[in-house]
């Protein structure tokens, strides 16, 4: 699905990613944990194509394409989805309107006809039910005035609507109550198939009770410094990150 090799990225001349390697295969869920400021969101932004970062070395192949050569929108159309750690409020732009445009641009990219209004509304109903988001919320301005938890739910709603190949979820569990945590996990698990994959960035082991990862990675100082089975998350929860720093 995605293969990241020796990725170096900097912003304002400061190197944040310092030779990151990660491979995720179709059908897998990988969790990334790591201390604040380690570079987790930077990785997510670089994968999504944020132009503020300068890629100084490395390769990323996504579905056998050179991801770094694609524009942000083409990455999305190829099937990459980023659930933002801090979803942006966009007053005046309706959630469903922009999702319809997004969906249709993706379909056009793949040579498909636009979705009919009827099918689109049916899809909105189905997916909003799946993530238990109030359909009224779905038709409001993007994230405007949403609570922290509602914003995160809206990210999962959009993900469900766009049905990506690879979803990168950046702390989608932060700020969620227990019910929302279950619902967001349901959304992620519903996407799970032999053709899809997810990268779940989190600080909390409890998310991984709902979304069982195939691998857990520790991102520290711009690199993946440790990888292991899901039990690694439990160990991190108990022992923190110091023992890993010391072992470096």
């Amino acid at each position, binding site marked *: 699905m995605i293969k990241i090799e020796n990725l170096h990225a900097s912003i304002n001349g400061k190197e944040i990613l310092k030779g990151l390697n990660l491979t995720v295969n179709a059908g897998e869920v990988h969790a990334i944990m790591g201390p604040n400021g380690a570079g987790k969101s930077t990785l997510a932004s670089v994968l999504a194509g944020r132009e503020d970062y300068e890629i100084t070395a490395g390769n990323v192949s996504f579905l056998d394409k050179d991801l770094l050569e694609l524009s942000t*929108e083409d990455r999305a159309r190829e099937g990459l989805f980023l659930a933002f750690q801090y*979803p*942006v409020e966009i007053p*005046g732009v309706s959630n469903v309107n922009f999702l319809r*445009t*997004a969906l249709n641009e993706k379909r056009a990219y793949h040579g498909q006809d636009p979705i009919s209004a009827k099918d689109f509304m049916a899809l909105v109903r189905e997916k909003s039910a799946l993530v238990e988001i109030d359909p009224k919320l779905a038709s409001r301005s993007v994230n405007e005035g949403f609570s922290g938890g509602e914003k995160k739910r809206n990210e999962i709603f959009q993900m469900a609507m766009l049905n990506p190949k690879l979803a990168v979820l950046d702390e989608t569990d932060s700020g969620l109550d227990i019910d929302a945590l279950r619902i967001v996990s349901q959304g992620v698990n519903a996407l799970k198939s032999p053709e899809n994959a997810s990268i779940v960035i989190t600080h909390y082991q409890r998310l991984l009770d709902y979304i069982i990862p195939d691998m857990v990675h520790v991102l520290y100082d711009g690199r993946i410094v440790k990888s292991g089975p899901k039990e690694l998350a439990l160990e991190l929860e108990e022992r923190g990150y110091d023992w890993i720093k010391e072992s470096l």
Partner: protein
Amino acid sequence: METGTLNKLSLFVEDLNETALAPNALKDAAHEFLAGQDFPTTRSERFKYTRLAKLANAAFSAAQSVNEVQIAQSKILIDAYTIVINHDNIQIPKNLPSGIEVSLIAETQIPFNEAAFYDIFGALNILHASLGISIHIRQNITLDKPLQILQINSGGKTFYRHHFSFEKNSEVAVYFISKNTEGHSSFAHTHFQYNIAKDARVKIFKIQDTNVGHFDFNEDRAKQAERSHFEINTITLCGSFVRNDAQVIIQGEHAQTYLNGAYWLKEEQHVANYTTIDHRVANCESFETYKGVATDKATAVFNGKVFVRKDAQKTNAYQSNANVLLSENASINSKPELEIYADDVKCSHGSTTGQLDENALFYLRARGLSEAAAKNLLLQAFMEDVLAYVKNEEVLAYVHKRIAARFNWNY
């Protein structure tokens, strides 16, 4: 000031005839005001951001009459009472319902009753206005259809003078559409005078869509009585040089005033909106929202003044101007001003000029929208609160069509 030689202003008026419409005392005052004057420079407060050199040096072809095809093409509303104004001709529909009277200013002196002028153009209008209409809506009349006024220029320099009188409890929407014919550069200065009696509900929509090479100057003077509702919504779609100067004096309590504007500029367009809302009595509300987008080397000016006089307690006045600049060479000069002399009032004003939100653009693109589609959506959202005042579907469709044609933005 030059003496002896002809200055630019004298050259500008050289081929204009004085008309016999205004009373002599007023003409004398205008002459006195203009004596020795040239076109104002940017050192003058009212033209600080407006370079008149272009106008001073412009050459205008002789005014032409427009034909029926051009008139038909200029209409925006199909189902409306339509008045057509051309430099030498005014067409008034014959099927007007009772309660509305339309006459030519040549037949009445009303438009000069309360004339005042603040700049050379206002004074020139007094002397040279040759054409105009006087519209009178009788009390308790609600027009069943909107009134559409098409003012079409085709070369030449023309001063117009229109007068509107809305009697008590009347209700009407007026769509004033200014256009000019392709290939003729022209200058138009239009003075509008509105008297809004108590309980009248009046909405003026100005659709300004002139070509490159046209100079479109407008001067609006309104007086509102108690419990009246008055709106001027100015939608500037095109025009190389547009200047709007609106003044509303609120004389009766519990009146509401809305002045709104939307402008989309490119190339070397210049659009200036000057507004004055004068709260003279208590318990009134005024709302002002001007929004615009500028790209290339376009320049926009907003200068909004709100006066809240000593007796205007419990005034609620809100004013805002927001702009999006899409190029480094576009510029906006925005100056909201509040002068408050009463103590129990709620007033706010604000002005913002910036680029589109980078984070929002990235967010939309990360969902698969092209950069153009993402910008399009953000600009549409930005202008939405002004366009929301335009409820007429035909007008909205026209606005969208013109923006798509000029900017390739699809709303």
